[in-house]
């Protein structure tokens, strides 16, 4: 049963920040609520005040700035990202990821910022944004701070957000040339969350096709989305062969720290990491060569 709470729906960001400051630790922010309401129904979260920011239009946008960076307002829905012409053209991996996130109904109402702040290690946006080297802007009553998506998560359902702060924007830098980025997740039903997800970005050198840079990101394989840095080190600077990718999968699997739950055992998840790192790595290389 959902507990009783007081509900406030501010209209502007400024008004929201004042409320956050006023209610200190008694509140919970709701955006689309697609994850939050499930937890409230289970009695896991019982706020005294629910501050509804869903209607704040100044945090709902997709644009590119003068540096051609992509800027997404935290309240942008998954569906808007999935269908954005700019994103489909220049950051297509984001649109692909959103297309496989939950069901159409959930994507129509749920926001990318809400998904990130929920901090579920099985979430789809975080691994892709980490592969894209994206940054978040956090806004509080006393100002703004920026943090890499990769540093945003602390533990299961825990982020660096302090009381009085909210996530306001996601910035994605332009994708370097000769770069391919791919994401996939293993799940039983298409609209389910990832049992394991893997996002990989590979940049090849223009003259001999060696691996100039690589980011391997694992979802639902540890308490938070994580980079498999030892596996990345293995690939960086080398000509990537099938054998080397297989080895990178094995190392990633060792680096992962999965748990056993109702969906899969830890052992099974480790096996999935091995398989998916190789598979997604191959796709990233194919895309890098085409880019």
């Amino acid at each position, binding site marked *: 049963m959902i507990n*009783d709470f007081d509900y406030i729906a501010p209209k502007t960001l400024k008004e929201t920040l004042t409320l956050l400051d006023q209610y200190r630790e008694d509140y919970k922010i709701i955006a689309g*609520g*697609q994850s939050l*309401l*499930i937890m409230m*129904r289970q009695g896991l979260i019982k706020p005294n005040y629910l501050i509804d920011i869903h209607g704040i239009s100044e945090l709902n946008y997709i644009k590119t700035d003068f540096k051609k960076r992509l800027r997404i307002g935290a309240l942008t829905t998954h569906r808007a990202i999935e269908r954005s012409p700019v994103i489909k053209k220049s950051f297509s991996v984001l649109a692909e990821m959103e297309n496989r996130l939950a*069901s159409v*109904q959930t994507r*129509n*109402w749920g926001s990318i910022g809400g998904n990130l702040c929920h901090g579920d290690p099985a979430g789809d946006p975080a691994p892709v944004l980490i592969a894209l080297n994206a940054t978040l802007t956090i806004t509080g009553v006393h100002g703004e701070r920026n943090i890499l998506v990769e540093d945003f998560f602390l533990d299961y359902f825990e982020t660096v957000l302090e009381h009085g702060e909210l996530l306001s924007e996601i910035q994605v830098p332009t994708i370097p040339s000769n770069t391919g980025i791919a994401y996939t997740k293993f799940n039983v039903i298409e609209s389910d969350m990832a049992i394991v997800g893997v996002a990989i970005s590979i940049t090849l050198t223009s003259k001999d096709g060696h691996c100039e840079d690589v980011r391997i990101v694992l979802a639902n394989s540890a308490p938070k989305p994580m980079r498999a840095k030892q596996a990345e080190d293995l690939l960086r600077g080398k000509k990537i062969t099938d054998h080397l990718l297989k080895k990178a999968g094995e190392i990633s699997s060792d680096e992962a720290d999965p748990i056993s739950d109702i969906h899969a055992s830890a052992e099974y998840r480790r096996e999935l990491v091995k398989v998916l790192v190789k598979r997604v790595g191959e796709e990233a290389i194919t895309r890098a060569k085409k880019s």
Partner: protein
Amino acid sequence: MRKELRLTVNGQPYELYVKPKTLLVEVLRNNLGLTGTKRSCESSSCGVCTVILNGMAVKSCSILALQADGAEITTVEGLANDGKLHPLQRAFLDYGAYQCGFCTAGMLTSAKALLDENTKPTEEQIREAIDGNICRCTGYNSIIRAMTAVMNGEYKEEK
């Protein structure tokens, strides 16, 4: 404390007072008596509570009623017009897209939302539109055939 909520449901405006924790599906069923919309999993998994909110299919079990303040909502009751069934409803009948019928309201509203935004969807898009709706009887094929028939123009709106 109850808060004021204004909704337009199937073209009819409503003004009511609800507790903040009230879900949209609860308002539709309990306050407005529109029991065509079903409740089941209550965790965004099954899709039986799907309604169309400002033109988008959403799950009414996973939205607070107050979040829908000011919205225009279509439930399955809003599909028929003046006693004449909607083309989708007639196609569902003809193609046997029902067995127990529990998923039907959600299937119809998801199908309607797709039809409203895309008059010529591919089969892939039809399948994707009902990806969030679980049916445990039909195996989906009859539902997809019914939707395809409407999208192909086999059913016209009855005047």
